[in-house]
């Protein structure tokens, strides 16, 4: 493969896709922006429609949740609720109101908490972001340490290395979480049972998510890592008298982490889904639990609000990942 491709590349900058008008880079930037908007809009709309599609009457739900009942309601009971939230309006009107609100940056008022969705999110997002951040850091530390330690060693050690990767990558987070909880919080009492907002309260939840992630990233990184270890420029570095460890850390690692970066991006993107497990397991506040509660009580403004937030996070993450790519591999600037 490479030979012809290389030959061709060397011969003339990558063939085909030659549109002579606007520079590809500017075009890709524009595309990205459009893409971001489309994603936000799409996600928001999907969320809205999905909520509308939910069975049963929203006003009834709101009322029942407020009174802890599950019964049908009389029109008299429902009238004020419908009036309050304009639920009697045709869907189209509700949708336009909603999108209009979004454009004004107004996510609406929670049916259950009677307060702006912005407030609710702002209150909870911190905890989730912290968890995600700590998770990522831990995952990277674990992964880099383990891969650097085991990759490209004797076949036995390599086996151990990738073996552990595979196992950890396959660990169900909740299960791992429970065991961590049982052993380190209940058993050894090293960490608090209730995560809360405390500093050492975040260790176990973060580990719960970090260990499988580290496994995933490890799998991806290890392959690249071992490939780069055989690369000529590594030989050159050895020929310069460079020690093994510094070779792994200064040269090889950088070449191996790109897939891991992608995975991290994905991890951030899917934070909500992942974090909720750690949150409910270690009773931490966070967007995930809010989302569940909101869906349970058909608190549409909160649900859609969170979806928009997540979509935004996803978009931003992607941009960051692209940047990271260029920082790590400057050659990507032109492609």
């Amino acid at each position, binding site marked *: 493969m490479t030979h012809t491709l290389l030959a061709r590349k060397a011969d003339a900058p990558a063939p085909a896709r030659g549109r002579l008008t606007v520079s590809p880079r500017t075009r890709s930037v524009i595309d990205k922006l459009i893409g971001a908007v489309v994603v*936000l809009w799409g996600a928001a709309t999907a969320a809205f429609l999905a909520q509308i*599609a939910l069975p049963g009457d929203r006003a009834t739900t709101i009322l029942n949740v407020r009174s802890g009942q599950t019964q049908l309601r009389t029109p008299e009971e429902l009238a004020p609720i419908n009036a309050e939230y304009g639920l009697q309006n045709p869907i189209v009107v509700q949708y336009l109101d909603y999108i209009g609100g979004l454009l004004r940056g107004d996510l609406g008022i929670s049916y259950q908490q009677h307060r702006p969705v912005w407030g609710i999110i702002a209150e909870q997002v911190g905890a989730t972001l912290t968890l995600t951040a700590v998770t990522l850091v831990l995952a990277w530390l674990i992964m880099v340490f383990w891969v650097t330690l085991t990759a490209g060693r004797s076949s036995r050690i390599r086996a151990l290395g990738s073996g552990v990767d595979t196992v950890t990558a*396959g660990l*169900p987070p909740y299960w791992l979480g429970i065991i961590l909880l049982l052993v380190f919080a209940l058993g050894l009492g090293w960490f608090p049972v209730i995560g809360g907002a405390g500093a050492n309260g975040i260790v176990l939840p973060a580990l719960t998510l970090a260990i499988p992630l580290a496994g995933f990233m490890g799998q991806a990184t290890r392959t690249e890592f071992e490939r780069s270890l055989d690369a000529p420029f590594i030989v050159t570095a050895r020929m310069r008298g460079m020690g093994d460890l510094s070779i792994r850390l200064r040269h090889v690692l950088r070449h191996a982490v790109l897939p891991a970066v992608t995975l991290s991006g994905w991890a951030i993107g899917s934070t909500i889904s992942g974090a909720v497990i750690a949150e*409910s397991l270690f009773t931490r506040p966070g967007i995930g639990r809010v*989302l569940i509660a909101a869906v349970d009580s058909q608190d549409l403004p909160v649900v859609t609000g969170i*979806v928009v937030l997540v979509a935004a996070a996803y*978009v931003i993450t992607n941009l960051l990942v692209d940047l990271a790519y260029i920082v790590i591999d400057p050659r990507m600037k032109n492609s």
Partner: protein
Amino acid sequence: MTAVSERTVTAVARKRRISVGFTASAITLAIFVVAALAPNILSTQDPLAMDFTQALQSPSLAHWFGTDESGRDLFSRVVYGTRESLAIGVGAAGLAILVALVLGSIAALAGRIPAGIVNRLIEVLFAFPTLLLALLLVSVLGASPITLVISVGLGSAPGYARMVRGQILSSKNSGYVEAARALGHSRFTIFRQHILPNALRPLIAIFTMGVGQSIVWASGMAFIGLGVAPPSSEWGALLDAGRAYITQASWLVVLPGFVIVVLALAATTLGKHIQSSLEKGETA
């Protein structure tokens, strides 16, 4: 050139050694398949039979995995749960790959406009939290294996879709496709003979690993209460039910969870072997 020949040599050598792991995982999976198809072969007792006198017995010879709060034999429940769990895993992975295949091929082969639209669609799917997808689906369809299949399937589809897209693109720009063009084959022939099969092959491996991952996911859903209705002994449901008894009867969570891990591990390992042997280009 030696580079090559050496590679083939080591490849052969590696292949010989690999087969150990390959068989190991294959056997493991085979056992699960048996459990799914003919649970009565493996299990000792009726997974639903309650025996209040035997409630919450810790693992023993009589009950290898112990018993649950109603005195049901956990081992039989795990065995009988295999069918549903495996079905969910296979179904979800299958659905994911199917969707991915459609989206991916369009994104890779269709014209600028449709490809653009599909790409955006994939993006949106990516951006839409899987958890919410599951929550909503459960509210609409109720808690059932189907629901899990759909939510997990759709949840993992976009990732695969990108993979397929990449595969098709690289195969589209490959030397052998150019060679085929030079031989004067028609676009369709080339797509049918080269692009599609070469894009599909890696999916076998992806699928195998996907099954494992999907089961893990699905059980995760069950864990946050989106699982299959009782008295189903689908693994996620078992975990969810056992959760209330962790401190007093930890086996109710630890053992089913462990089974899931083993299955996932076996699936991944098998998938990896398939993948590497495919990469080596040796078709059996």
